[in-house]
């Protein structure tokens, strides 16, 4: 009984630590790779000339030219897609298909043959997470990022 309790505690502690480590990872990506900066301020007049998306000197995650070394990996790219295109990813997940979901799974390193299986599992987890309401875009992205990390482990093993 004591051993069982110890095992449960260890599993719980391990799971919590993993979660904290991954959450920090998303937070690191968010700050170090300038994800927030990528959402340009909505100044209509300025947007008209700059076409919103250009930010000379600001870090950007989309390529190794303009992003720091530690923002070039698949994790950072996955985090960026989730954060920047969150509404589209969320809708695709609910529908179980779509261009943004395919892009997400590709970035997470999943072969196309595994997309249906992974997105099915992701969809189930995502449905449970939706019970939580009133969270920010950052929290939403972080939460989905953790789900993607967990559900795409199978892709690395394949």
């Amino acid at each position, binding site marked *: 009984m004591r051993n069982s309790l110890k095992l449960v505690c260890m599993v719980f502690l391990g799971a919590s630590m993993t979660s904290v480590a991954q959450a920090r990872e998303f937070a690191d990506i968010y700050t170090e790779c300038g994800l927030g900066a990528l959402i340009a301020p909505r100044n*209509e007049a300025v947007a008209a000339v700059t076409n919103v998306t250009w930010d000379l000197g600001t870090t950007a995650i989309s390529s190794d030219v303009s992003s720091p070394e530690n923002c070039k990996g698949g994790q950072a790219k996955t985090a960026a897609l989730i954060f920047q295109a969150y509404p589209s990813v969320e809708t695709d997940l609910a529908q179980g298909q779509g261009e943004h979901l395919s892009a997400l799974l590709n970035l997470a390193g999943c072969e196309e043959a595994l997309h249906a299986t992974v997105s099915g599992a992701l969809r189930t987890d995502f449905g449970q997470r939706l019970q939580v309401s009133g969270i920010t875009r950052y929290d939403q992205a972080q939460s989905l990022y953790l789900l993607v990390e967990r559900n795409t482990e199978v892709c690395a093993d394949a």
Partner: protein
Amino acid sequence: MEYGRIGARFFRPCFVLLMLCMGLWSQQASAMDLARLAREPVWLGLLHFDTESQRGEVTDPRFYLAPNGRQNPLAELQATITALSLPAQSDDETHARCRFPARAMWLDRELSRPLPAVSCPRLEAWVNLAELQSISLMLVSGYFGNPASSFGHSLLRMNTRSASSTRGLLDISVNFGAAVPENEPTVVYVLRGLFGGYVSGFSDRYYYTHDQVYTRTESRDVWEYELVLSPWQQQMLVLHLRELLGMEFQYYFLSKNCSYRQAELLALVLGEDFVTDVSLWYAPVELFQRLHDLDRSAPGHLVKAVRYWPSAQRSLHERFDALPPDMQSRLNQQLRAERFDPNPWAEASAEQQVLALDFLLEYVDYRMAALEGEALEPWQQRKNAVLRQRLAWPPGTAADPPRQARPSPAAGMRTSRIYADFGRSDRGEGVAAIGYTAFHQDLLAQSDLSGSGLVLGDVQLGGGRNGSWALHQFDVLKLDKLAPPLSALAVDLEPAWRLRFGAQRESRRCDECLEWFAEGGWGRSWEVLPNLAFSGLLLGRLGSRGLAPQLGAELNLLYLRRGLGALLRVSRLQDFKFARPSTRVAASLAYPLSGQWAMRLEFEQQADASLSLRLQRSF
């Protein structure tokens, strides 16, 4: 033996002399070759060298290897060859071959001697040339949400082979724009934008970031021009983009803007003229018109395909149009009431529920795209309700409704025009006028009832009372947005509006009656019959003669079909200062002739009436 020694004594100096001469000749020939290479259009293009100002347009000193490289293409060429000839340690990203891969690629071909190979892992990681399938130039439609964005936008995308399931969302796209500080005052922004006050440059992004901004947030249509380039041209373009990333240019909103810089890139790899004669402005559509022109001689040799990608708004309305009428009616009721939870579709068939929920998700996304901050929260709650309902059903959506491809704006009339009017007035007098329009997208020359028209700088000289010519009309800006709703969806009704600012003679018989004015209208538009839109606007006007504000109403009937466009406009304004109402009736019938020629029948009645025929040529 003796002969041999004599021969050696005689021939050795001759041989040395010969070698010296050859060396001198070779050096001279090499110098001549370099001078020739430095004048090559490709080299000047790689340096973005402006032959008028005699200096490179890249203002960033990191772009030049020679101290005077910006002003002297030959010095820059020599410095580049020297730098490329240096041995490199493994993975030396600072080596000239990694910093200037396009220059290296061109010089590899042009020079007779090989330059050392260098490994550039960061370049290889940026773009996998083996995966690169083609390059597309994207034309983003004008954005009437802000008049300054009405000209549209253009950007490049590198299409990879593995992008079929993601519509290129993960392909790298390259944009050119200005770096504008946050919270820049509008006046400062306009002035700096017009007169070169901003630093600008190329930047790279995954295409999904542009898709988010243009297609979803701003709901703009996109036309993708997939280019036909040889492997050499394609590689050259990609490598040159790489060496330009982060380099600084000076930005001019009207002329040296995104499309101008992309036109320069196409000129570099295609060897065709794209930017000569650019004086005051270069609108994005002009770059694409040039592509159409070049491709016309052998269709498909330059543009493989033109694909239309509708805005989020158009996609939403197309999906709504494809639903059965009873579902449309129920959805309209639901959306008017903003009732998302509990699910009003719970009693419907499984197929109808999934159809309705998928439409609602698209609708909520469309509404949320324009919101930010606290305004998002209630909509996220609504979306969560729909998501929960949708997640209860198996994955998979109904096929997208058939897409109605809209022709590219570049396939239509050119943006500048000259015209001549001939006719008669109600008093039997001849009417004659000539005019020039700097930029126009004709309200009556659209492919569908988009109801959008934009005119900038329209000057019309008319025959005066004494036979002399006088300014009859000058439109600084004329904007019309008279589009009817895109579908029967009852909750996405955009206003009809128009804005006009300029000067006009009150009567053709009065040479001194030129009045400056500003007028604007705001109202609604409906599609009363197929291809026929009716709009009603509240109208306001302020004129310089007496500075009397006028208020009134305006009715418009707009018909567009297969190139034929007709507009009937009746407006009545009340002058509050002099209590004098005025009614104006105008009718136009436009028909395209061949090529860039078009004719127009115009009727106008205000102080006097006139009927005239206009012949116009766009260019």
